[in-house]
């Protein structure tokens, strides 16, 4: 196979060059002085964990966001990209993770909608066929979108970009919805683009794919550009280390809570199965593990590998059809709804703060009620005691140092970190027997992250069990006693945190389970 990158000379002006691109959301720096260049005919990977700033960067390139500082250059000319339409005029095409096709229209009609007015359907169909043959896309312009598989729909999106003659094609996690065969086909198409001189920016966190497809990779970690390097000759391990951060190993772990060893587990999950509920969902496959008193069990893994599904099963938002799947201290809570599970002693902090863990348009006292209404003290005969809910909110605000503009503000008025402290504090102050937390410090500033982690450690030290679903390996190694990795709906063996390395976990997160045997 001829790779285009071999033909590139160093003098070729980059298709796109980013210099010092910075973007903040409130006090959170999503992109911090990101600089790198994409050459013509190159397949360039943008690599990083979820939350590392990949999506923000792509939105900046495509004009959906404007950078706070920094400059993009195109063939050496400075440019400011004010919107997607301008980005397209500049020759930047983008295929999003989720498609935007009208199911009831044909492929040609869908593409016609994206093009400037005046395009005739018959000639468009002919052009689609022509391009389809040239790149091996196998797109039938007359097919209706509802008849197409996910992979075919993606090819329609690619075709839509191609018709605008882009010099740079951005693909945001394109393989997350594809079967291995479809992935192979897509890679063949992308290589053909590169051979014809088009540049591709390929966003992913799947290490095998990046090594197979791309020539160079830029690694983002916490919004910062860690480096741009050739992917040839790099091992998965080296890439994982770059993505996760080599400083991981330096952080001292929490000591094992020896005094609680030997007590029966607080919560036992046995053969948890959940079929796929939608095309973008992940099936949970036979997950079994125990959460022990005094321990923090980290479930590492990249988002979209069954974390949401596992979380819903643990919180009670989804209940398994059979019993004895989730047993909390001798009580089978499999069929309990979230309110009943809370009464049984489960505290849950979902990943998404806005609209899941909290209602942005409601005051903090009402948000406190959200997870307290089934616990007595706040409600008598169906009537809310607003004095009690305000007192709980005030208690959380005080105990967790939540910075608030007034006594009882709307949740939307709080910064991400402060709202996160509030929703974590809301659960921890109830002293649950089992605390389930997803991405507890995602998008949170360092100070808030420290206080949230300390609170979780204190809860465990007092004899509760903590299950922490996290993709932040630094965090996992900082506070977890045991680690398991969730990949593609399957859970690895539970390993003591002091007996595995970040590299091993990173490999398991990327789906490479040859090194450490997955439990099944």
């Amino acid at each position, binding site marked *: 196979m001829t790779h285009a990158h071999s033909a590139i000379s160093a003098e070729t002006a980059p298709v796109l060059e980013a210099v010092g691109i910075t973007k903040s959301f409130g006090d959170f720096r999503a992109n911090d002085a990101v600089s790198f260049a994409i050459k013509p005919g190159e397949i360039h990977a943008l690599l990083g964990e979820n939350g590392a700033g990949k999506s923000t960067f792509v939105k900046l390139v495509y004009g959906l966001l404007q950078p706070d500082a920094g400059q993009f250059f195109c063939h050496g000319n400075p440019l400011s990209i004010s919107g997607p339409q301008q980005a397209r005029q500049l020759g930047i095409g983008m295929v999003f993770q989720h498609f935007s096709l009208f199911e009831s229209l044909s492929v040609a009609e869908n593409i016609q909608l994206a093009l400037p007015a005046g395009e005739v359907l018959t000639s468009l169909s002919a052009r689609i066929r022509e391009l389809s043959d040239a790149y091996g896309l196998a797109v039938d312009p007359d097919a209706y979108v509802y008849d197409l598989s996910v992979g075919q729909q993606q090819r329609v999106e690619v075709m839509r970009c191609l018709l605008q003659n882009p010099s740079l094609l951005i693909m945001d996690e394109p393989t997350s919805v594809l079967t291995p065969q479809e992935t192979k086909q897509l890679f063949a198409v992308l290589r053909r683009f590169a051979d014809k001189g088009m540049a591709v920016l390929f966003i992913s966190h799947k290490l095998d794919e990046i090594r197979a497809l791309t020539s160079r990779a830029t690694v983002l970690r916490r919004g910062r550009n860690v480096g741009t390097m050739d992917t040839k000759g790099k091992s998965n391990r080296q890439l994982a280390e770059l993505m996760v951060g080599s400083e991981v190993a330096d952080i001292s772990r929490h000591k094992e809570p020896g005094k609680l060893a030997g007590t029966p587990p607080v919560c036992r999950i046995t053969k948890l199965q959940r079929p796929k509920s939608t095309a973008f969902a992940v099936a949970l496959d036979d997950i079994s593990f125990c959460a022990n008193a005094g321990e923090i069990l980290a479930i590492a893994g990249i988002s979209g590998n069954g974390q949401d599904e596992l979380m819903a099963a643990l919180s009670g938002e989804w209940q398994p059809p059979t019993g004895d799947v989730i047993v909390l201290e001798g009580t089978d809570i499999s069929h309990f709804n979230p309110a009943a599970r809370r009464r049984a002693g489960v505290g849950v902090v979902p990943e998404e703060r806005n*609209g899941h863990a909290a209602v942005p348009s*409601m005051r903090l006292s009402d948000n406190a009620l959200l997870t307290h209404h089934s616990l007595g003290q706040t409600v008598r005969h169906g009537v809310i005691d607003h004095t009690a809910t305000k007192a709980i909110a005030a208690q959380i605000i005080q105990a967790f140092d939540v910075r608030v503009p007034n006594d009882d503000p709307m949740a939307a008025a709080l910064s991400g970190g402060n709202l996160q402290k509030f929703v974590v504090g809301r659960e921890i102050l109830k002293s649950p027997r089992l605390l389930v937390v997803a991405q507890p410090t995602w998008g949170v500033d360092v100070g808030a992250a420290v206080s949230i982690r300390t609170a979780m450690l204190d809860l465990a030290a007092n004899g509760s069990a903590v299950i922490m679903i996290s993709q932040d390996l630094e965090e996992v190694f900082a506070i977890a006693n045991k680690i398991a990795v969730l990949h593609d709906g399957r859970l690895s063996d539970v390993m003591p945190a002091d007996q595995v390395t970040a590299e091993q976990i990173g490999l398991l997160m990327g789906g490479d389970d040859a090194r450490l045997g997955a439990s099944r």
Partner: protein
Amino acid sequence: MISMTPRKDISMQRTVLTPVFSVLLTLCVGAGIFAVLGYDPSAALYQFFVAPLSRPDQVADLFVKACPLIIIATGLAFCYRANVWNIGAEGQIVMGAVCAGGVALFFPAIPDLLMMPAMIIAAMAGGMALAFIPGILKTRFNTNEILVSLMLTYVAALFIDWLVRGPWRDPESFGFPLTKSYGDAALIQRVELPGIGTIGQLHWGVVAALALAVAAYFVMSKTVFGFQVKVMGDAPRAGRFSGFNPARTTLGVLCLSGACAGVAGMVEVSANMGQLQPEVSFGYGFTAIIVAFLARLNPLGVIMAGLVVALAELGGDRAQMALGMPKVVTGLFTGILLFLLLAGETFNRYHVQINWPRFDQLKSGQLKSDEEG
């Protein structure tokens, strides 16, 4: 180019002043339109806003006009707050009236004291049953409740039409499509104050409507049920996380709004008609949708909004009679009033910003590309 961002905290002062400003603006715009059309603006505005409020009995009639609107909009406020779109109150009114009428006409043996409670229960059941259909179809089969509830309106309208022309027609009605008249126990009496007597058409249904709105305010703001409705409306995912059942919430608010509409139908017939006829509601079920939104889905606000809408309708009637103003003009004026009230509310809730294109973009001809950004 134009961006609307929700305001994070809305001041009380703003909330009170916005509708006042909207009404003032309506007066100006209305006066302009009346003048252009050749009517004396001051006389027209007098007929609209002053005349219907000039005597106690006229004020009482305003409340009577607002009564069904308040009852229905109170129920709808819960529905819409939960993001469930019951557009079929008009049909639920009819079914409430029919069921209550069935009790009044065919069970005259019920003791007088129990007749009214029995009719209320029947009316609630009737309205609820019709509202339950879109609810169960939505929760089971994910159908669109807007379409189903709206279409059932026509079913209900044809059903009562068939009843009063067919099986329920009074044989002594000389062929008119009317049922027998209700017995006295099945009629809602006028409010009689000691020493004053009756005031206009004011009846006990009005008192009940006001009490209902106040009670609904309490339920909405102080009970877990109200909280559940608001959470499911604002953030359904947070509601499920909290332990509320989405399907039960949907069914609950639909049944509640159906029951309210049913009672409104029963009150209209028992207080004003005394027998069933082909038409028992004159668009109240649709007007109440506007009332609910004008009230920002707040049951106490429903009282005010119901009165405002009733005033606009009564004022329109008066302007037609006194000044010979065509119905379309009075309708236009009412429309302007409602439009400006709702627009004012939008400005109250959102910060609207117009971003003029930057000079450098204009210069380099990049204006077009701004459309999507």
